[in-house]
């Protein structure tokens, strides 16, 4: 009996360690936690969950915010204008959007470089020619490319939403902000070079939706999540079919297994 009890204790120990490991797992590498930034609250995103998909209207509004606000500092290097057709723009709209920017074309007959209007097949034209130009215009800070930002930050979309809505006019007492820095509750270290980009009156939505800070943050984060995970809808709908197939298939294999093993006993 004693032995049995001891075994139970060591197994319980292992189980407890495993449980702690599983709980700590997602947070194991938490950088934010070690720098005192609070965990961003979870938002109810349309793309959450196994049946999640993107809110088309939010995607278009989010693109409007990118095109009117973010683009003045942030590039979107991994996306092409043609990708906008995936979120509901028509080919003519995409051609018009692309044509607003210029890219370098092939050399002309004399061999001199020429500039031409961008095409849907071109990548999004970045706001700055290179990183140095970006830093020079931004007080020394480099605005990150936004193509993968929703995957490249711990907390993903929830973090981006918290960051965009987490600016405070004044730093808390005891903290001095260097020139050109702003206080953000959710940014690691709290001192962020980006000025509050959204204030609720930043854009006038083309679809007439009233622009509030929460609405704007929600829309741009939806757009950036799509930009980082354009395959999400295809992935989730295929995943449901795959899992359903596997459950049926595995159930049949189990029945077959039971039938074969019955001969033994």
């Amino acid at each position: 009996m004693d032995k049995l009890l001891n075994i139970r204790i060591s197994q319980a120990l292992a189980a407890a360690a495993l449980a702690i490991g599983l709980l700590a797992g997602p947070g194991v590498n938490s950088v934010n936690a070690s720098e005192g930034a609070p965990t961003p609250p979870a938002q109810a995103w349309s793309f959450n969950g196994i049946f999640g998909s993107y809110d088309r209207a939010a995607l278009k509004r989010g693109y409007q915010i990118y095109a009117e606000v973010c683009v003045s500092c942030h590039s979107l290097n991994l996306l092409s204008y043609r990708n906008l057709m995936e979120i509901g723009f028509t080919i003519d709209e995409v051609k018009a959007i692309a044509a607003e920017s210029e890219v370098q074309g092939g050399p002309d007959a004399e061999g001199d470089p020429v500039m031409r209007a961008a095409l849907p097949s071109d990548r999004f034209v970045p706001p700055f020619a290179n990183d140095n130009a970006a830093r020079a215009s931004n007080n020394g800070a480099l605005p990150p490319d936004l193509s993968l930002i929703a995957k490249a930050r711990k907390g993903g979309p929830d973090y981006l939403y918290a960051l965009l809505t987490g600016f405070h006019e004044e730093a808390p007492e005891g903290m001095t902000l260097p020139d050109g820095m702003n206080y953000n509750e959710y940014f690691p270290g709290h001192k962020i070079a980006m000025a509050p980009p959204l204030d609720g009156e930043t854009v006038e939505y083309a679809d007439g939706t009233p622009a509030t800070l929460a609405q704007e943050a929600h829309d741009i984060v939806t757009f950036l999540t799509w930009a980082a995970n354009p395959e999400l809808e295809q992935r989730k709908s295929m995943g449901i079919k795959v899992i359903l197939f596997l459950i049926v298939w595995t159930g049949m294999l189990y029945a077959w297994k039971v039938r074969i093993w019955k001969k033994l006993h």
Partner: protein
Amino acid sequence: MSTPGNDKTFSNPVMNWIEYRLPIFSFIDNSVGSNYPTPRNLNYWWNFGSLAGVVLVIMIASGIVLAMQYTAHVGYAFESVERIMRDVNYGWLLRYLHMNGGSMFFILVYIHMFRGMYFGSFKSPRELVWIFGVMLILAMMATAFMGYVLPWGQMSFWGATVITNLFSAIPIVGESIVTWLWGGFSVANPTLNRFFALHYLFPFVIFALVFMHLWALHIHRSGNPTGIDPKSPEDTIPFHPYYTIKDAFGLGVFMIVFMAFVFFAPNFFGEPDNYIKANSMVTPPHIVPEWYFLPFYAILRAITFNILFIPAKLGGVIAMFGAVLILAVLPWLDRGKVRSARFRPVYKQFFWIFVADCIVLGIAGGKPPEGYWIPIGQAATAYYFLHFLVILPLLSKFERTLAPPESISAAVLQSNAGKKGAS
């Protein structure tokens, strides 16, 4: 018509024609077929070896297709992976399969190893099966490490920098070895190129080692939960159909878990920082390896002090490699005659404490090396080696084991009569 040394005949004349010239059908039948006697009492912990084999095939298949689209150049690697994700047909599926397949491979193999420890599968006469297994985990680690560098994200670059720098701890020639590994004076394009070449090569080395692992296994055949050898025909059943169907069912269960990650949480095991392109001018605040290296990373960092003439850094490197290599001599550290922990009441407890210790090491490896995580990591490291070097040798000498059953069939009948369904 019969073949030399084999009287197997088939109703299909084509099969007979081939069999006479190359006895491949009897080879299959003797390896995983009706002619391969297997203990009748294998439980589901015996599924993980074949599962790992399936994942190896999935990794090689998805990896070859990914390699067709990938560009091993520091200027294009990150972008080429994103092109796979965005523009290649089902590229996201291939890449997420490969990415999560790596994590699955380690989960399966770690469980497979713990199963071997619990049921004494490494003991005589299966020492070589176990040693090929240790070589396999080493080859897997090298492959996984180099594969993680290929997307050329921040963690790829800094992980490669930290790990390759470990070799600089070797006295006298260390720095030269690191320069040689890099093909230059920092992790750069030559490093990425050779890692890609080796990442493509190593899976075939793994494949060859799997062949050796299985060859050695098929000489003395599978162990079993009782740890006793089959004594009569009643103790064994043919591998096919009994274990082919059991493995197939296990594969179905595993695929549900694997695919759930691929389709619904593909970045669960990943680091957000690896979606930032490598930048040698910006160090991430917290460099961590992939989760499956965390216990070994904790052991590496546990040695924060010089040991006699060995500097702390070298000590950490020795401890880390020692933690894997010590497994190779496990059959000689634990020399007890009784194989299965079922009949080793004290060993059974120490086994679970060892499992808990490995999990603690894994957590400590993921934490920044500060505060109480340092002594926790050190204590867990000390216990890791204590388990192998002190506890196991003493146990195999002094433990009072229980009497194993008469035979496998006796054990099966007893358990059927008593607690039905338990295995």
